[in-house]
């Protein structure tokens, strides 16, 4: 059957080991093993942290016989994960897929292609949903008692929950894409809207009551509210917790009907939207063409800036840290008292305000890892840099500088505002500036090394590089590693040395490490480039 043949091709194209790992396991086994270990470590640490949080939360709920609340969390997490995935990917999977010109001339029904595309997209959603909700489900069964039928009902339901968001947010994804394609500043507006949306969610969840033994108790009312008013959420809880077969049948009926209706509804639309994307509209302009001469590093940085703002997921992922620094810098002046109370929670573990601010800024800096992925993002354009008479080190330093420009000014802004709000001493401020500068340079440099050794040029969608590549994972981890080393030094010296001395020592260590990184890139970038 053609559907299965198509699926086989799509899965091979999207889920092959080579695509996921970014390297051929047959030719570079050691590299592949390292990548697999890093991925397992990355997901393992996230799942363990998440698992512990929900295990503890389940314990609290079981004391008051309310473990069913965990099912609200399962429903909301599964729904939001699906919304997030569909918003970002549905347009590329359904309405503007890259292999349209290959598939369209073939004697295959559009409906079959859509079904196969939907199946692949759903497979990714299910993979994420099952992985993220499994610790919550574990906590539910551990504290509420295990039941095979309940588990079967839960698994069936988890296959159904993403279908409603899939139907609704596929259209949202198409609308966003159409909007950004048709207006000159549509892309910028799209980025602003997405940031507003997610910052809104953050503000909303932070404004909820944050009290009790577990941080999750603050989200409880909101989550139970959602599944109370969304009928599928209500049915899901009834089906799993009370083994209500009618509720399960309702959930199955509604979800399957929605999916079937959706496929019929979009069948013609998919062909139309894909056909529209095949044609290019060229606008002519009489505006004078300006020739400029600039330093090649400036050119590379400029190119990076344009690439950054041209890829929504790139801005969204790597721009979140700088935006949070900017918002934080302003917020600390306005909500000084609230933030002091919040920071005070941490002071219980023996950290001063200065150290906490540095830790927070350090974490935000770790989220900006453009230097760890920007070489990969060259993708099919990499031939340009390789064929030009530009040294590999120049390319890497340009990419590194872009990362620093993106991070450092806003990190310093946030630091200065914090210093103003919390009246930091002048000497402390000086060493903190030195520390942030050293951290930004070292973090960017390590990112460059990561990308030199773990590039991923073979990708269909930039999301694969920005969010799922080994470069992205290691880029963030490398900054966490520096922060951990700096924190350990702080922890062991805090009783014998003053804050400014310790931070100065941390900064010196970072500068020394950066010197090593700098010379490594200078020496090794070209030979590595030649092999890529």
């Amino acid at each position, binding site marked *: 059957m053609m559907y299965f043949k198509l699926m086989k091709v799509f899965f091979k194209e999207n889920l092959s080991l080579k695509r996921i790992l970014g390297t051929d396991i047959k030719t570079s086994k050691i590299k592949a093993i390292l990548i697999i270990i890093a991925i397992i470590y990355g997901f393992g640490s996230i799942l363990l942290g998440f698992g512990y949080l929900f295990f503890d939360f389940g314990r609290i709920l079981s004391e008051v016989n309310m473990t069913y609340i965990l099912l609200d969390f399962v429903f909301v997490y599964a729904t939001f994960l699906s919304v997030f995935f569909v918003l970002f990917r549905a347009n590329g999977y359904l309405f503007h897929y890259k292999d349209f010109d290959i598939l369209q001339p073939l004697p295959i029904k559009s409906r079959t292609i859509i079904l196969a595309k939907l199946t692949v997209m759903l497979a990714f959603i299910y993979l994420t949903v099952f992985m993220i909700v499994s610790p919550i489900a574990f906590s539910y069964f551990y504290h509420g008692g295990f039941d095979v039928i309940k588990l079967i009902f839960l698994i069936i339901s988890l296959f159904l929950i993403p279908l409603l968001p899939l139907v609704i947010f596929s259209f949202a994804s198409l609308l966003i894409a159409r909007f950004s394609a048709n207006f000159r500043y549509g892309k910028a507006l799209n980025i602003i809207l997405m940031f507003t949306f997610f910052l809104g969610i953050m503000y909303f969840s932070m404004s909820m009551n944050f009290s009790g033994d577990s941080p999750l108790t603050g989200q409880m009312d909101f989550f139970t509210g959602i599944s109370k008013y969304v009928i599928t959420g209500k049915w899901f809880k009834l089906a799993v917790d009370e083994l209500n077969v009618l509720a399960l049948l309702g959930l199955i009926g509604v979800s399957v009907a929605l999916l079937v209706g959706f496929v019929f509804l979009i069948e013609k639309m998919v062909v139309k939207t894909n056909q529209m994307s095949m044609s290019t509209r060229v606008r*002519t*302009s009489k505006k004078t*063409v300006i020739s400029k001469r600039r330093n090649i590093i400036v050119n590379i940085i400029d190119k990076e800036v344009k690439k950054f703002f041209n890829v929504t997921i790139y801005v969204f992922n790597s721009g979140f840290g700088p935006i949070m620094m900017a918002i934080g810098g302003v917020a600390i002046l306005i909500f000084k008292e609230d933030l002091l109370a919040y920071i005070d929670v941490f002071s219980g573990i023996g950290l001063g305000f200065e150290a906490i601010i540095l830790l927070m800024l350090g974490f935000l800096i770790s989220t900006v890892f453009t230097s760890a992925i920007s070489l990969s993002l060259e993708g099919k354009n990499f031939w340009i840099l390789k064929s030009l008479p530009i040294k590999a080190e120049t390319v890497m330093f340009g990419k590194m500088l872009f990362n620093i420009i993106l991070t450092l000014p806003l990190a310093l802004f946030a630091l200065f505002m914090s210093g103003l709000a919390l009246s930091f001493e002048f000497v402390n401020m000086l060493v903190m500036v030195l520390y942030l500068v050293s951290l930004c340079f070292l973090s960017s440099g390590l990112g460059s090394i990561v990308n030199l050794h773990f590039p991923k040029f073979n990708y269909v969608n930039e999301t694969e590089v920005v969010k799922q590549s080994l470069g992205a994972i290691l880029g963030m981890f490398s900054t966490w590693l520096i922060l951990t080393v700096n924190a350990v030094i702080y922890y062991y010296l805090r009783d014998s040395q003053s804050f400014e001395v310790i931070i100065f020592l941390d900064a010196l260590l970072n500068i020394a490490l950066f010197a090593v990184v700098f010379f490594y890139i200078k020496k090794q970038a070209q030979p590595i480039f030649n092999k890529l």
Partner: protein
Amino acid sequence: MLKITSVSKSYDQKKLAIDKINLEILPGDIYGFIGHNGAGKTTLLKSIAGILNFDEGEISIFEKSIVKDNLEAKKIMAYIPDNPDIYESLSGIQYLNFIADAYDVDLERRRNLINKYAKMFEIDEVLNNPISSYSHGMKQKVVIMSALIHSPKVMILDEPFVGLDPKASYLLKEVFHELVEQGSLIFFSTHVLEVAEKLCNKVAIIKNGKIVADGRTEDIIKDQSLENIFIELLKES
């Protein structure tokens, strides 16, 4: 002179994609490179351009080794790939300025050349637009312009006529003649044997990674057509 001496490359350490290739391309040559799909044309062209490493042999561009003197060799060379994949987030003029800066072309010169070629290829009115809005042919024209912007002594082109309209193809051939008159050399692959026959003073035919014929076009084709020769050579085991 572009000198390729005993160059071999394997992708899997089992089968050679190009096998001990020897070629000499002199200033003034328009050298056509012909071969079946998968014969090794792109591998050799990319090796010359410094994009791919090769396992054995030596490639020198006007006495500068592409391995040992990589940057100096690249400075006098331009490469055009078979697919015009370029930075779509830049505008045409931004891309051209970027390439010109990489080759350190002075402002006056680049202004003149951009004006000349933009008008010639009729893309002067779209150079301020993002490359993402260009058609395939327009992207190809920008790539060609970026290669011409520093008046290279060596031009390496992989299927340069694909995607070009007849007028642009004609103009590109004119540019080839103009360049070789100034002492440059051109080495390009093509599947269009008529183009090779009429345009090139020399040709090389590659089969399964090995050069099976090379030299002056008239000496190779004699009283036959290049197409006949090519088919005959492919048939031979």
